[in-house]
């Protein structure tokens, strides 16, 4: 417990503080970007993007090996992940926009086939050279041990970029999300904005790649906005609250995992975010389970007493 207080009050040492800052920034950026993704009903695009990283990573490794370079270069692998992630996002956009498939079906199809391609390429990479490919899959599934300062710097830098872009484009994003036709008639480039949003989601996913794990970073994009939505409605407030909840998840999650033995940081961060969502679902004064139950009881009593029943809009 003393250890936890120490970490929470930033007395855990320089490296711990760097990791804390990186995770907090990532949570903040994920909460803000995730809000716009949720409003546009594209929450699970991040899920597809994270799966689509596998063929990118394995493909970049194979290509580099084929040209005689070492396949283990991290920037190269990340570039591969980013490329395949953006291709997947483009495929989902095209399928949703131009065919009769709904967004969920398009996402699921792209997710499954790109991950399938990834396993095929990974199998080839594992056979291609002895040892060189070790850890390729770990790059996608995340480090389960502690976070490194190197991860934290990368995470923080990418998060700041994503945050700045979201702040600049936030207004346009929400116009497109709430009224696409209006956005089009006022001359907003809807398609470009959707692409930009997908790129931001990809950036956040990539930032969480090594430290949190690609499958878990999805949670940071989804849970804080969903929790914030239970408390507030106005878009700007929503994005701020979601960002704050994400930041708290990152901060508390890292602090907890630094003090608990064997607890992987990424998973603990996600558990904190999920706990915040669960608490919001129960306790929110307007939409929470407790509030809904109480309102029902009041209405039932009124109905039994023969009074006119007027339900206040939540």
């Amino acid at each position, binding site marked *: 417990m003393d250890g936890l207080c120490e970490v929470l009050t930033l007395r855990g040492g320089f490296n711990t503080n760097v990791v804390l800052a990186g995770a907090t920034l990532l949570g903040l950026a994920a909460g803000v970007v995730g809000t716009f993704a949720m409003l546009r009903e594209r929450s699970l695009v991040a899920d597809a993007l994270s799966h689509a990283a596998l063929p990118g990573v394995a493909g970049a490794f194979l290509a580099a090996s084929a040209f005689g370079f070492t396949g283990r270069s991290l920037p190269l692998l990340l570039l591969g992940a980013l490329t395949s992630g953006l291709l997947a996002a483009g495929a989902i956009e095209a399928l949703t926009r131009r065919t009769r498939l709904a967004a969920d*079906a398009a996402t699921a199809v792209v*997710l499954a086939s790109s991950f399938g*391609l990834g396993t095929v390429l990974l199998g080839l990479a594992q056979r291609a050279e002895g040892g060189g490919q070790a850890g390729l899959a770990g790059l996608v599934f995340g480090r389960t041990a502690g976070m490194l300062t190197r991860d934290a710097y990368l995470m923080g830098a990418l998060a700041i970029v994503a945050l700045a872009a979201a702040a600049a484009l936030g207004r346009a994003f929400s116009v497109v999300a709430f009224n696409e036709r209006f956005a089009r008639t006022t001359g907003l480039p809807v398609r470009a904005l959707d692409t930009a949003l997908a790129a931001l989601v990809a950036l956040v996913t990539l930032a969480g790649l090594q430290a949190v794990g690609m499958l878990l970073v999805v949670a940071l994009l989804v849970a804080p906005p969903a929790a914030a939505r239970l408390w507030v409605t106005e878009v700007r407030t929503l994005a701020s609250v979601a960002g704050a909840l994400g930041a708290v998840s990152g901060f508390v999650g890292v602090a907890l995992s630094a003090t608990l033995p064997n607890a992987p940081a990424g998973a603990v961060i996600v558990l904190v975010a999920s706990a915040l969502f669960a608490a919001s679902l129960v306790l929110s004064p307007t939409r929470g389970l407790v509030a809904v139950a109480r309102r029902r009881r009041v209405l039932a009593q009124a109905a039994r007493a023969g009074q006119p029943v007027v339900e206040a809009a939540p």
Partner: protein
Amino acid sequence: MSSVLASGALGQLASTTFWQLDAAPLAALALSSVTLAILGCFLVLRRQALFGDALAHAVLPGLVVAWLITGSRGPLAMFLGALGAGLVTSALTLVVTRYGRVERGAALGVVFTGLFALGVVLIETTGARQVDLDIGCVLSGQLELLVWPGVTSARDLLDAATWRSLPHSVPALALVHVLTLAFVLGARRPLALAIFDPRFARSIGARPGVCGGALYGLVTVAVVASFEAVGSILVVGLLVTPAATLRLAAPRAAGNLGQLVGGAALLGLVTALAGYGIAVGLGPLAGLGTLDAAGTVTTLGGVVLGVVAVTCRVRQ
């Protein structure tokens, strides 16, 4: 592994390696592809196409808890643990969608990522890591591990002893397959009502919630049974791709529930068998060695859907 396509399918039927190495994976693939393609039609229609992917991650804590309780990694304990976690996922998603008023995708996302993270933390903190219970064992396919040692030729199939060494997931998948066919054929009218017009269903005294719940229960059983045999990524692909492809290729036929289900089952079966053929037949021919069969099948499904999407758009 021997190749089915390389030296002719008929010649292969006589070979021992085909029976021992390819027969059980092919049977598992055929059974699960048809079952999942049928159930996937309903998920696509209900806009819950990502349910399979959510289950693939959400079963992790169930596996760890089952191991903690029983102390075994046996197939029955793992199946029950996964099934429990799957049912919890369905129920939680329902609660979050109804009361949280969040978009369905986001509700599913919150639930399955939270459960997955719980599983990861449980693995690391309870010592499950030491017994080789890791994330990989739910995420990667095991199709290549379905070896049938007791069979050497087609004649052995008449011998009861041969069947005893059949990998247990094949009869399990067969059972789920029969259950699915019985449910979908037996309850086709209430199912169609529950999916297309739940309000009307309620107004004539039917209980669409019960029917939908039974459907999700069956999907959970089928998906969990298939994970072990064919791997989770293949399950996600087999569930959604056939129904989605059919909706693109033949929108009119796909509007008819019976034709959609039948067509998806056929398409799923053909894709699965062709993908397996490519993995073990064309892979070695192209000098790549045998490919990962689960990956090849899902990739093939995606490629077919992509081609259909492009050509159908041109035709319009």
